[in-house]
């Protein structure tokens, strides 16, 4: 039993499997939420499944549980692989695994029964916050000591991102969650919204983005079998990300009475985010240039490159919708819900899934049970998410323009009903995609064909 926790790459695999499971859980809650926006009396009188309680379970399970967990798992594999060493401590990674997943489990187990701090993206109660911080600290220690004990002089860009993700989160999370106020996790008064959105935006920006970028930087050059295009662009992308992203949370409360200078900073830096994003995307794109067939022909790398495409869409839309003039129409409605989905499932989720499918054979020594099922999952999620994005964006534009035309929120409800129904229907595709993935992963672990030593070595050295 004890030996189990010392088995190399064990924690990496555990994180990825947990991520795939959380994906299915989060998708189920998303499905219920979507149905409730069409039929509010679906499963009535069931307290844990009212919209106000199921929505945070969906959101947090997807963010931290699916995307975060899976990307950490990928990182725990590529970090030592890129440093030509072993993870400093496998048991410590398991400790991080336990704390991290405890926090996520507190969502479905807690929010549904009123144990929540209620602040969007900061809902976990104080004990769960502590658990998440302990996980982050364990990961920092493990990453630093793995770097210290490396056999490869150069730190590849994926290593920077993986390291920095937890250094930033360890500062970010307690600030945004106001952990020094354990009861409410909030500051009194309006200033709370500034703390709230500091983490609210840095969660995607300085936790998920670096993890996903790190994974993309790992998978793309390996599958295209070319060296990374440019070290300089990597540097620029990395430093501009943290220099700009940290400032932009204010654009979530742009129309509220927060100080004007904060609004200005958040808008200017939001627009500037186009720079690091396009630098990263260009760097990956140029790396894969001339090798498109290798990337798009490989189901795992297709997911990763698909995620990069969603990243482009997200990060053109995101800066634009921070503009006050546009936000008058797009704020408070389904437009932003569409944006959140292409950011988290599109960018973060695609890269997480791609990295997982790429790495699982390297960790287990087994071939994927079915490449076709990976492609099927890609197709299901891509159809679902693309539809989601179009439908929600359209619904948001209808709401936003109707409100400015003097229609009340209540009056516009019949107009968005067909869009909400389509969204629920499209959700079925995403839910099915998550289940197909879980099945494929399970079958790989149980029945995947064991690779010959030679074949495994070849796969590991693909780059």
């Amino acid at each position, binding site marked *: 039993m004890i030996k189990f926790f010392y088995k190399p790459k064990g924690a990496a695999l555990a994180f990825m499997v947990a991520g795939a499971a959380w994906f299915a859980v989060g998708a189920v809650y998303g499905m219920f939420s979507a149905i409730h*926006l069409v039929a509010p009396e679906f499963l009535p009188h069931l307290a844990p499944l009212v919209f*106000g309680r199921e929505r945070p379970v969906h959101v947090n399970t997807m963010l931290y549980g699916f995307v975060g967990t899976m990307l950490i798992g990928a990182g725990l594999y590529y970090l030592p692989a890129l440093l030509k060493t072993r993870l400093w401590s496998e048991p410590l990674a398991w400790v991080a695994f336990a704390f991290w997943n405890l926090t996520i489990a507190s969502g479905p187990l807690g929010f549904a029964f009123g144990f929540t701090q*209620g602040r969007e993206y900061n809902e976990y109660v104080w004990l769960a916050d502590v658990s998440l911080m302990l996980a982050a600290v364990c990961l920092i220690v493990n990453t630093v000591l793995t770097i210290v004990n490396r056999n490869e002089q150069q*730190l590849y860009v994926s290593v920077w991102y993986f390291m*920095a993700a937890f250094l930033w989160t360890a500062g970010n999370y307690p600030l945004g969650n106001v952990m020094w106020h354990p009861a409410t996790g909030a500051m009194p008064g309006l*200033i*709370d919204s500034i703390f709230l959105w*500091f983490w609210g935006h840095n969660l995607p920006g300085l936790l998920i983005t670096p993890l996903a970028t790190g994974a993309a930087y790992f998978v793309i050059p390996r599958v295209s079998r070319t060296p990374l295009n440019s070290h300089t662009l990597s540097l620029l992308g990395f430093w501009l990300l943290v220099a700009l992203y*940290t400032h932009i949370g204010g654009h*979530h409360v742009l129309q509220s009475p927060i100080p004007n200078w904060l609004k200005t900073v958040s808008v200017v830096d939001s627009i500037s985010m186009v720079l690091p994003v396009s630098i990263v995307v260009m760097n990956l794109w140029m790396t894969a240039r001339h090798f498109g067939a290798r990337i798009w022909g490989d189901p795992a790398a297709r997911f990763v490159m698909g995620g990069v495409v969603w990243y482009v869409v997200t990060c053109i839309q995101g800066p634009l919708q921070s503009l006050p003039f546009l936000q008058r129409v797009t704020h408070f409605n389904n437009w932003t819900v569409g944006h959140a989905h292409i950011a988290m499932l599109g960018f973060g989720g695609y890269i997480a899934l791609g990295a997982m499918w790429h790495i699982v054979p390297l960790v287990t020594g087994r071939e994927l049970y079915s490449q076709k099922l990976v492609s099927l999952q890609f197709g299901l999620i891509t159809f679902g998410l693309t539809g989601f994005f179009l439908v929600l964006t359209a619904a948001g534009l209808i709401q936003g323009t109707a409100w400015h035309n003097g229609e009340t929120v209540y009056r516009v409800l019949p107009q968005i009903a067909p869009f909400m129904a389509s969204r629920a229907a499209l959700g079925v595709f995403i839910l099915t995609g998550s289940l197909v993935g879980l099945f494929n992963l399970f079958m790989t672990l149980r029945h995947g064909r064991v690779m010959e030593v030679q074949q495994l070595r070849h796969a590991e050295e693909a780059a």
Partner: protein
Amino acid sequence: MKMTPAVLIIGALMVFWASAFIIVGIPSMTMKETPSEIWRQLTPEEEAGHRLYVINGCSYCHSLYIRVSDWDIGAERIAESGDYVGVEPAILGTERTGPDLSQEGGEHPEDWNIAHFTNPRHTSPISLMPSWDFLEEREIRALTAYVQALGGKAADVRQARQRQWKTQAVAAYSGGLDRNVEWLHAQVPEVWRRMPNPYPATEAALQRGKRIYQQFCINCHSPIGDGKGSAEPYLSPPPLNFTTLRRHVVENRYIGGIFYYQIMNGITGTAMPYFKKHLESEKIWDLANYLAVSFVGYTDANIEPRGIDASYEGAWRNSYPPPGTEAK
């Protein structure tokens, strides 16, 4: 530039903390908590309601600030930073699947709110809000208290108006069906009481009116207009039974203006809300025609005085006989 572990770790931390200082550090040192002119302290019951608001995720569908651009709800008062003093947490919200609630206090009387929390469709037939009937009665009362406090002192003024008129409305109702209608009609300004509905009650207009009735009115006033909708058990005074209005047509001629005025302004103190933010003029007149034709059996649409017909109007002529004049 070579990324050594030291450059990576120290650099990443320095850039992050410098940025964090700008974004949360400086606001913490400079933002002042000065109460606005409508701010007041929440009572313990309202605090308990706020807690329920937070843990049940009301903030995922309701915002708590009115923006300059919110013309749909009038934007009579734009949110100020001093409105949130001491509220922990003041969740501003990011979605409006339901309406903004920052000035909700006193919009409706308590009984409307309790019916609404028990099942939102009691009062708002097409609402997407979940029913909160699994909460204890005490909790629904606390939530109601919190909602009624939203808007601070401005809400208190509205609340006082609700209470003042509720006393009179309940007294009028206890005087019997006809006394109640007489009291209600007496609250309508004189000019409106003798104003016929200027819109023809065409088939299309009645269909429009029916649609509006189903979206706004049906669960209080019921599908047959007798005031026994699903919300009725919660409300005091109960919703009006339209069928008794046949005895109260003004001068046996006029009813449209009274309908219009009461739909437009509501009857503050009772559960009857005002609809002038939801519905514009033609929709209210269409609804008035629907009520009149369906539940009173008579409409004053297009009768004299009516001036010059609008250019689009066809040759519709009112053939509804006033009550008591029907050919036997």
